[in-house]
């Protein structure tokens, strides 16, 4: 992965930078010792590593503004970092950058149940937002798999989704307002506790901009009353086509499940060996979850089961208790861990039109054979967000490169059938160089024009999202 060369003048003046940062932050909030900065050398995309020049851990919006003002004046690149759980390398440092970690800013600032909002500092973890309101039977809907660790700041940067977004939407649909610090230190507020923009929807533009337009320090989020209950049903099919048709029929029937999860045979087998959830050994497995009161759930599941039976399932398992529900979810929730047990893996995130599922799964299986690398598929079928997991051996020379080449082929396929490179993980550096397969020059140029407006010197989260040759002239300007 090509990264811009660190600027020698920045590296040479590290002491000057540290002195200025220390003048606005407490001693323990500025990390410069290479032994310690190394902890920030990568995020969850561990294949790429680069220790930053320094790390700062501010405690307030004012401190973030002070840091950015300094870095802007000195021309130092800044990489904002939430919890470092990006699978796309969204928080990968450059050697001449300052990592701006938001983890110390994790307070709840306001909880207002009547108006259904919570305002938090953006370093707060996703799950702990729900944790702050669940006593009153409320929750925050977006639920990325990393929700125990990932920060709201990162969720906003990547517009994160989760298993339940078929019903509740992704981050942008649940984000009402932000406090954001611009690269020049200016603090602005976008949105608030109200439901729409009074002018241009800049909030919508910020969400998903991968930390390249500003540093979000506070967020106002929509919280919702918890449903009375939820229950999954598990169904096994002897082909991906049939499972795909079943998904489509459920959606057409007017039921809107909160989640429709799909696992293919390689993934089912790995999961069974790892977690022993008692899944049937079949080609494709669906977990469909619905919400409501007991009677409402019965009504919806009745309809779903009736549809499923028309597709001759090899297994139908309806949960009757909390334990059975947990058991049905157990395998799905341990799928990533199970695959990791077998080998190193790369998790892709392409999204395709639901109608293309059977074709794409078949092509992935063929390509897996051609490359000689196993691929398991576990994903959100209701919205076409695939998560092919490519297994490789990091210790075997050339395996990572082969895995990346296969990954790129799969993502190109997703774009070819009318989909996109990434549904919820973000571009980061991982998909950066594939952007031209999905976008034309003009498509990318106008996105970069947005960056010009918010961060004219191109200092925020450098070398992400846009291919380096495409962004080169702007970065040099």
């Amino acid at each position, binding site marked *: 992965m090509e990264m811009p060369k660190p600027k020698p003048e920045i590296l040479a003046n590290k002491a000057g930078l540290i002195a200025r940062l220390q003048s606005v932050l407490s001693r323990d909030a500025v990390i410069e010792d290479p032994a310690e900065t190394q902890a920030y050398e990568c995020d969850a995309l561990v294949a790429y590593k680069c220790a930053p020049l320094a790390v700062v851990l501010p405690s307030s919006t004012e401190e973030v503004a002070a840091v950015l003002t300094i870095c802007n004046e000195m021309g130092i690149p800044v990489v904002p970092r939430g919890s470092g759980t990006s699978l796309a390398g969204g928080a990968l440092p450059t050697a001449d950058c300052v990592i701006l970690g938001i983890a110390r800013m994790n307070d709840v600032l306001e909880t207002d149940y*009547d108006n259904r909002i919570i305002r938090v500092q953006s370093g707060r973890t996703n799950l702990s937002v729900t944790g702050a309101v669940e006593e009153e039977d409320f929750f925050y809907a977006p639920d990325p798999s990393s929700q125990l660790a990932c920060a709201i700041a990162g969720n906003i940067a990547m517009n994160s989704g989760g298993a339940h977004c078929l019903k509740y939407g992704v981050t942008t649909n649940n984000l009402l307002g932000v406090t954001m610090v611009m690269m020049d230190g200016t603090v602005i507020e976008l949105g*608030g506790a109200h*439901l729409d923009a*009074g002018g241009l929807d800049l*909030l919508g533009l910020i969400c998903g901009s991968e930390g390249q337009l500003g540093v979000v320090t506070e967020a106002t989020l929509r919280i919702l009353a918890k449903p009375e209950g939820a229950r999954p049903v598990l169904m096994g099919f002897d082909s991906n086509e049939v499972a795909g048709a079943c998904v489509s029929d459920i959606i057409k029937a007017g039921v809107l499940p909160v989640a429709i999860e799909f696992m293919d045979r390689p993934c089912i087998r790995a999961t069974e060996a790892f977690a022993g959830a008692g899944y049937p050994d079949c080609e494709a497995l669906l977990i469909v979850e619905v919400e409501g*009161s007991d009677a409402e759930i019965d009504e919806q599941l009745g309809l779903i089961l009736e549809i499923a039976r028309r597709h001759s399932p090899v297994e139908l398992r309806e949960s009757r208790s909390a334990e059975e529900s947990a058991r049905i979810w157990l395998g799905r929730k341990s799928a990533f861990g199970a695959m990791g047990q077998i080998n190193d893996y790369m998790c892709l995130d392409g999204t395709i039109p639901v109608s293309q599922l059977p074709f794409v799964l078949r092509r992935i299986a063929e390509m897996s054979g051609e490359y000689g690398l196993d691929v398991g598929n576990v994903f959100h079928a209701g919205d076409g967000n695939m998560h092919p997991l490519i297994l490789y051996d990091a210790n075997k020379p050339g395996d990572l490169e082969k895995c990346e080449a296969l990954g790129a082929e799969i993502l190109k396929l997703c774009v070819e059938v009318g989909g996109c490179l990434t549904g919820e993980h973000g571009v980061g550096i991982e998909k950066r160089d594939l952007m031209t397969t999905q976008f034309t020059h003009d498509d990318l140029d106008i996105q970069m024009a947005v960056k010009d407006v918010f961060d004219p010197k191109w200092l925020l989260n450098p070398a992400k999202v846009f291919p380096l040759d495409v962004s080169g002239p702007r970065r040099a300007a």
Partner: protein
Amino acid sequence: MDVIETEATLAERLRDAQEPVRVLGGGTRGIGRPVQGKALSVAGLSGVVDYEPGALTLVVKAGTPLQQIEQTLAAEGQRLAFEPMDHRGLLGVDGTPTIGGVVAGNISGPRRIAVGACRDFLLGVRFVDGAGRIVKNGGRVMKNVTGYDLVRLMAGSHGTLGVVSEISLKVLPTPETVATLTVHGADGEHALAAMTRAITSPFEVTGAAHVPGPEPAVHLRLEGFPGSVEYRVRQLKSRLSDLGEITVETVPERNAELWRRIRDVEALQSAYALWRVSMKPGAVYSGLLPAIEQWAQCRTLMDWAGGQCWIALSEDEAVSLAEAHGVEDAADGAAWLHRNLQEAVADRQINQGGGGHATLIKGADALRAAVSVFQPAPAPVAALSAGLRQRFDPKGILNPGLMN
């Protein structure tokens, strides 16, 4: 009028244009400051490009009539869940509303509180910017975070950043059953309480509106499968019984009519000037409404559980305001109220730290030309918007001045 029939022609026109253009779909939503410029209609860019009911996705050209889309979806038991308002009655205009106009204005109806706004249902757009470049953003899949999200930026940009040519939408199944609970006599704090209890319950209320007046009432809508709706009606009724007499409407046509009237703000159609205020419900009731009472006799309608407040001023009242504040005519009186409304909405004492905006939706050209129709933003935010406009529309030809 220049009626465009292909995206390529649209790009050519904008590439060559040196003078301002006034972008139109069906021309039924004259929102914003009046624009001087040659009319350019995208109504000829019409038709369904792709519809996959099993994937809940629809791709249409921007000039496609809304009615045609609704019919296409209804044939498959689906709909545009964000329930776009029809402005024709309110603004007293004819014409054929198009999906492009809906997107340009981010037009959403009562169901916004449950399912989201127009912008939340947009999967992708194609548009032509002010330099004539064809741009796509987003796509036609449910989840897409590839690159910056210009889709949401285009929604509600009123054709000032680009002219949308094609739109991908998420659609939803139309529920089998609908019921409306009406809490009779609920007004003021009681109305807010009824709506708040409803939307903070787990019962998925898809409409919550308060109609003040001599016979005030709160309407609460439930949708879904029959057994489920029946269950939730029962539950909600028992939670609200202390707030007024409750009746339940289950006839589909009457429900549709009731919510159409709320959606289209029919009760306030005769207004001389009409504003839409977006604030958190608590701030509307304890901050904004008392402030308005100090200034003028206005009629109001609250939707979105109080989060969207429609404020109507009659011509007589506008004249009284003009007299009381020593300004010339009704338009000046309305302009006086407009400035006070926007100041109030920006006041942290009134918005309770939650922000908000007041937008003039209906008013004579002279009035709309004299005021900042959209809520003015603080300087750094206004500078960002201006910077975006400069880059998306370097010649300054797309609906210039409409939003600022």
